[in-house]
């Protein structure tokens, strides 16, 4: 009996001592945190996606408070988040552009793209991209369809549909992770307001493109001549629409022989 009482007393005393030590240590080694940092952190979306260039949302909040990152630096939170943070920080938010959305510049789905072989091996676009001949499709510039972007997306906004990556515009937060993940460099962030875009990246000459894919930009330049705004340029056998100039008249899309300028 006395044994039990003794051990209870010893434990209680040790517990009290350790507790007092912790209280003392907590006071002595206190780290001053800026209350604004906590507030800013609460405005950020908390995905830790890293699209802002910081290690995560905590690091971003600290950087904003230190003045090292712009208050509207979070591409995921967008304008709303930027406004809240600028209110906390008491600085002007600056212009946040229109909301961006990822866009995959390839339309080589299974029905229009011919395949040249079977592939068995590591199921990732990086692995397929370094193979001789780059994956199973004839086109070596297009979507490989092994879903490296799908794995990279923190918002479940991109999926392989019919052999080609497709972005769910309502879910996309324009963090840019898929842009970095794509070994073919197919994904571009375009303003959500943009209407038309060239959905192909094949840089070969038109005759070769035709043998590879039914939905390939032939580099014919018809769209360039159609555009009254001068928004379309042709480089490396591929048309590109400058979204800041495009007014969405749709004349280019009507003329495109490959029907590759599409409403996004």
């Amino acid at each position, binding site marked *: 009996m006395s044994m039990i009482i003794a051990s209870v007393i010893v434990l209680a005393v040790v517990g009290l001592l350790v507790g007092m030590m912790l209280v003392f240590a907590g006071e002595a080694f206190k780290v001053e945190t800026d209350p604004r940092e906590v507030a800013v952190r609460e405005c950020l979306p908390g995905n830790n996606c890293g699209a802002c260039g910081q290690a995560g949302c905590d690091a971003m909040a600290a950087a904003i408070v230190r003045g090292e990152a712009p208050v509207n630096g979070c591409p995921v939170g967008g304008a709303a988040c930027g406004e809240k943070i600028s209110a906390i920080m008491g600085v002007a938010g600056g212009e946040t552009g229109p909301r961006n959305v990822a866009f995959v510049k390839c339309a080589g789905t299974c029905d229009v793209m011919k395949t040249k*072989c079977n592939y068995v*091996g*590591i199921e990732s676009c*990086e692995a397929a991209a370094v193979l*001789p*001949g780059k994956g199973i499709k004839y086109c070596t510039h297009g979507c490989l369809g092994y879903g490296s972007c799908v794995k990279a997306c923190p918002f479940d906004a991109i999926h392989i549909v019919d052999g080609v990556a497709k972005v769910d515009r309502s879910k996309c937060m324009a963090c840019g992770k898929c842009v970095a993940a794509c070994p073919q460099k197919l994904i571009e962030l375009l303003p959500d307001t943009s209407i038309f875009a060239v959905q192909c990246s094949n840089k070969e000459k038109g005759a070769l493109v035709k043998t590879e894919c039914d939905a390939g930009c032939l580099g014919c330049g018809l769209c360039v001549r159609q555009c009254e705004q001068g928004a379309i340029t042709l480089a490396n056998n591929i048309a590109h629409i400058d979204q800041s100039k495009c007014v969405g008249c749709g004349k280019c899309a009507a003329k495109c022989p490959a029907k590759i300028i599409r409403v996004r």
Partner: protein
Amino acid sequence: MRTKTFRGGVHPSGMKELSQGKPIQFYEPKGDLVFPLSQHIGKPAVPVVKKNDPVLTGQIIAKADGFISANIISSCSGKVKAIEPRMTTAGVVAQCIVIQNDGKFDTVPGFGVPNDDWASMTNDEIIQKIMDAGVIGLGGAGFPTHVKMRPRNPEEIDYIIANGAECEPYITCDERLMIEHSDWIVAGIKVVQKLFPHAKGIIAIEDNKPEAIKAMQAAISGESNMEIMPLHTKFPQGGERNLVHAVTNRKMESRDLPANLGCIVDNVATLTAIYHAVCCNEPLVSKGFTVTGDAVAEPANFMVRIGTDISELLEAAGGLKTQPKKVIIGGPMMGMAITSLNRPIAKSYNALVCMTEDPVEKAFEQMTNCIRCGRCVRVCPVGLVPQQMAVAGQRKDYAKYEKIHGLDCIACGSCTFICPAKRPLTQLFQLTKKEIMAQKAAAAAKK
């Protein structure tokens, strides 16, 4: 006495019986010949002909660009049809010279004229001749031979190893070369011995080729400074590092070249090319090539002109008897699958294997997680730990991958072959290596 070998390695079934007994046939192409400008390790060659220029067999059509590069020689006569980017056998679009073959094979003056007093040539002249002839390592890697012949320590070279291991399954062209033209190989070794007078010639042959060993034995009778060394049959016995270790018992560190350990290693086909270049004034226009596999009607060994279309050569071997499921250029362990037969044969390719079954596909269906049995470690001929490398590769932990010497992987495929969990290890290592190289190149470009 136990035959010599190296540590590690695997025993894939040889499959050499398909083409082993078939004598070498000389094949003259009928169609156009295509010469990619980059058939070797190093900088691509620079074309010295223009469109519509007439060319002759043995004419230099592209010159080496820099020290580590090699000339490209036309292997037929006719005229230059085009110099344009084409899909090469390696699956990349690269600049190629296309020659319209007139079927006459007219040669440049002096081509094939025996050069009897080659022994009085200086070393520089011999090496220049090898360089002019566009000779590269014909075993597969394609390293320019003239570079190999200029080591920093010519005095210390004491072994010239003729690599007749031919450890890849299916391939038999080197074996046939050793049986039928052993004198060419011996003459090639003599030329290299002229460059390195203290060196002993060792002809290393796996012991599954008794006929080749016998033929070479007969060819070197009377030569005091040459020896045949039968080696244990094991893949990758013909890998440069493994061969040096097996023959000399000298261990190569990761940065070593064979020359650092006093060895010059040349494939028997390369030695043949050296002999032809130096003693016969005949540049590298043709090479041994095996067409084999269970889908080929009559597997055969050819002496084929470089640039010949693969489909044309396949027809010469009786065509396909069944639809193949997989077509590989090179051997099944280290070769690569190709997607079209309308591709040219480059200098460094030595076989076409058409298989009715794809073992990789079967293996992939059975893939499970790593069971950490360590068999990959036991078979790795370089002494690496593939299991750890795979973990680092999957996590994209490139610093760790480099730290455990993952960049020394020679991609022989032994670990993938032995893996009971059927993991695609070699592919992962190749991918990781390429990504690390790309990162390094990007970092260097930034500076």
